[in-house]
């Protein structure tokens, strides 16, 4: 049953989405599609982060009646790792910001040439 652990499976899901995202980024010509692939990749990274913080059988890092508290509200050994969750919050927000900006760029590019094919935007080269 080594393989069948939630942490490992979601790690695989994360890796899978990252690779799929890369595939889209490298193969799609449509700018919106490329940005979508980025979003998929970011989702994958987020899953990766959370699954690394997961500890089998532990509860969410919130001290309420559901967990047994030790002295001074210590919940050591009861909860999953709070740090990756904090990091992933940041990552999600950053991802949102980047995506919004990329899309703004996409609109601007579309306005300039009335096309979304990335091959058409090579004014600067060599």
């Amino acid at each position, binding site marked *: 049953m080594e393989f069948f652990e939630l942490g490992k499976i979601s790690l695989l899901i994360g890796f899978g989405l990252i690779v799929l995202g890369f595939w889209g980024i490298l193969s799609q010509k449509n700018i919106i599609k490329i940005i979508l692939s980025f979003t998929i990749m970011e989702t994958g*990274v987020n899953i990766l982060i959370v699954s690394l913080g997961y500890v089998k059988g532990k509860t969410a890092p919130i001290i309420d009646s559901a967990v047994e508290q030790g002295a001074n509200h210590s919940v050591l050994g009861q909860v999953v790792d709070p740090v990756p969750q904090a990091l992933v919050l940041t990552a999600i927000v950053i991802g949102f910001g980047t995506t919004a*900006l990329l899309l703004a*760029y996409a609109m601007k590019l579309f306005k300039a040439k009335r096309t979304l094919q*990335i091959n058409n*935007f090579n*004014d*600067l*080269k*060599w």
Partner: protein
Amino acid sequence: MVDPIYIIAAALGVGFAIGILGNIGRNFAGGLTLATIAFMSFVSAQWFAGFYFGNVSSSYIFTAGFQPPLSINLLMGAEEAFLTFIVNLLGLLGGIYLFVNFKRKGRNAFVIYLVLLMGFNVVIMTRDIFNLFVFLEITSIATAGLILIEKGNRAVGAGFKYLLATSIISSMLLIGIIFAYFYTGTLNIDMIIESNLRYMVGGPIIIFLILISAILELKPFPANGWGLDVYEGAHQGFSAIVSAGTATASLYMLYKLLPIASPEWSYYIALLGAVTFIGANLLGVKQRFARRVLAYSSVGQLGLLMLILGLRGFLGPNVNYVFFGILITNILAKTGFFWLVGIVKANEIKEWAIIRRKPFLLFLMGVFIFALVGFPPFPSFFSKWTFVMDLANHGLFGWISVIIIGSFLEAVYLMRWFGYAVKSEDDYKFDFKIQIHKITPIIILTALLFVIGYFTAQFTETGAMINFIPLLFVAVLYFADALPIWVKNTIAILGMGIYFYFTYPQLDNLRLIFEVIFIIGGILTLIAGYNYKGKRQGFYPVALLMFAGLAAIIEAQTTLEFFYGWELMTAGSYFLIIRGKKSMPHALSYMLFSLGGAYALLMAFSIANIGVVFPSLDILNNIANYPVWAYGLLLAGFLTKTASVGLHIWLPGAHGEAESDVSPMVSAILLKAGVFGVLLTLIGMGQSTYDLGTLAYILGWVGAITVFVGNLGAVFQEDAKRLLAYSSIGQLGYIVFAFAIMTHLGWLTGFTYTINHFMYKAVLFLTIGAVVLRVGTHNMYEMGGLIKRMPLAFIAVLIGIIALSGVPPLSGFTGKWLFYNAVIEKGWYFQGVLVFFSGGLAFLYLYRLIQTVFLGQLKDNLRNVKEISFWFLIPIYVLIIGLMVFAAMPQLVLQPLGTLIANYFPNNQLVWEGSYAYTAIGHWTGTGVMISIMVMFLGTLLLVKLSTRKAHKLKQFDIVFSGERPHRPETTHVAHNMYAGFYKAVWPFTLPAVETFWNWISDFIHETAGFVRRIYSGNGQAYMLHIVLFIIIMFFITIGGTI
């Protein structure tokens, strides 16, 4: 000390607060932004000053009141203080420069800019790896935003590519970070370093992901198309900030993260740096557009800095000196240059001729280019020197070659650009304006470059020995450039005179000879300058720059001082040469050969420096490590300056096209710097315990062939100055050959030639130059019959060529006599024959100087031409007197020379008895020959005069024309193309193959660059593909096999 956290608090507090202002008060928002940046600069400046004076120590800033690793901490150490100070200061200047552009975009632009700078600060200071990621993202996003202050689709395209690329990179970084956390349980960089992550399962991959992202931020070749596009596409005011700020922050980030990895990573980074440095600069050669040239140069410099970072283990205590010296030069010069591009607004580098409309801008451009190429007195010169010396100490000559090749390629395109700016035709309709808020920051940067350069020199023991007073004098002349010519000329002459007066008592005889040639010769040629009218803008600073360099070479106690003088002299002479009307290509080739030579010297000095504590110039004596290489490189370096065969193709153009009084400076005087160098090398070789006879033997052959090629080339010239230039090549060949003989007599010959060549070449070039000024052409066939109009010039040329050709009674004969004695004694018969035969060629071309220029028929348009200028005649006749004295009483000079040479070759084979000189082969007396020839000459003259008293004077138009109408006017001159038949027979011996060879090299570089740069297709997706490819390839190179 103000807590550095206030840098961040102030930036963000003000940034957030500006939102309230709404759309009103853009000026206020801008002012507030600048004030905040000023505050940020003040805080970091305060820390930097504290570290500089040693009254503070590194301190950690703990956020949230917890010790790391529990919460994020920042570090303010000496490096951080310096870097944040630089970034903030540049940010402040950039804010002033971009004020108007920001204002146009609204207050948001100010805020974004402020936040960007804050981001740089945190990236530099933070010790938490995830925090690093967050603030790196801040800088990326802010950059992507500010690219848009430039209008147009190009900027949008560039920003989009940038955002795509950085998104991929940051995803990789994030994956690495989270795994690092998983394995080490901490996000603090110091703790991760302690945790030995690299020994854990999967650790190498994690480290790989983190480091490869940090490396990709540095735009390694070839995965850097996006970076180039940003530099090119963004507003140039902002590109400067990207180039300086991002470079600084990303480099320091890599520096912080490197200790996590195993030591081999340093090697990989050095390798990538090398590839980037050479790759980017190679492609730069092919660029035509100003912005893109700067982009390639920026990336190239990043490569160099990566290289230093990778090799830091070999630098010991000098690592900061080297790294920060090159970094600061790059930042200041590149920023200034970008801003200059923003002012001048000429797209193609050819169009940069318009910069001449504002000569001050040309000066700034020159400063930036010479700082980037690594000339003194800029910091990079000293840092590169130390870097190369340290590398050599560890035997890393491959890396030295990388630095040299990259620097050379960079010099190629920067110097070409500068050449266009100085010389190409300015017939463009568009113009540019200088705005005070744009020029002020650039001026501050320039001043900083000089000041920091000075302090950089003071940091090292040898650097502190450099005498900067001559350079200060040059600066004075630069600022006095508005004065009339005679004032400046007098100041220059007085300055050089005073310098000579104070320095000559300290010199040994060997150096005194060269000091007299350089300084007294310089003063004499400067006298001719009184002839010019007006202001002659820019002439005096650059001429004095060259003389300052020559003086520094003479005075040098250490190899560093010598190299410093050498580079100053190169820079000064380059500026002098490029002043000529058609000098653009010649000045470039002069510069490139000189740089090549200088790099050879650098390499040789570094070899000599191995294991040496104090690099005095004496280390060139008896170099113990790789002696053949060291002396060979030294000779190669100096021979570029003496224009020996193979390295000679720059000379004819450079000397031929120079101004009338510049030609003697660069020919009679400057070439002797090369001779001085050759001499130093030979002295060193003489004391070597290794057998270096073969090297001297080869040198002898090089000299001999040079004599032949130079003289043969001179024969076929129609241009009087080029003829003299080729003749210089040949004459320098004699000198090199004579010194290479390595005997007492040989050296005596060498010195005799050196002194004489200085005098007669100065006489000839001054006279011909003065004639050219009068007749307005270099072409001899357009002259003729000038003897009637310019008798004094004729006499000067006559004496000059008698001296040169080695006919008695003048000093050339002294030289020849000694020469054959030396050759026979040494037994170099084949070479001797070649040189002897070449001497015959000298008659062929020297004859033309008299026959074509002064004899024959006077051209119609020259009927009223006047005698050459009085101001030229003074130095000419002073020198002629010198020639006569030397010829009549050679013992005056040769006897002390003999004593001097006896230091090196004690076996003095020349014995003097009064005016009689004896060798094993024969004897000769200069005085006697002079007296007898004079008697014969005067007697014959008298006889002829008396016997032809009643002869009919034939006028020019006594000849009858038969109505012919020649199509090519020059063909009517009897002496046109005089040796055409001869040329058909011997042309291969003029070695056109040498020129073909160098052209082939140049073409090869261009072709390669043109081919490689096609990878930058401009497609954002292709750039992402490059990045991914780069990651994968690096993965398999670094750890692929070890899993």
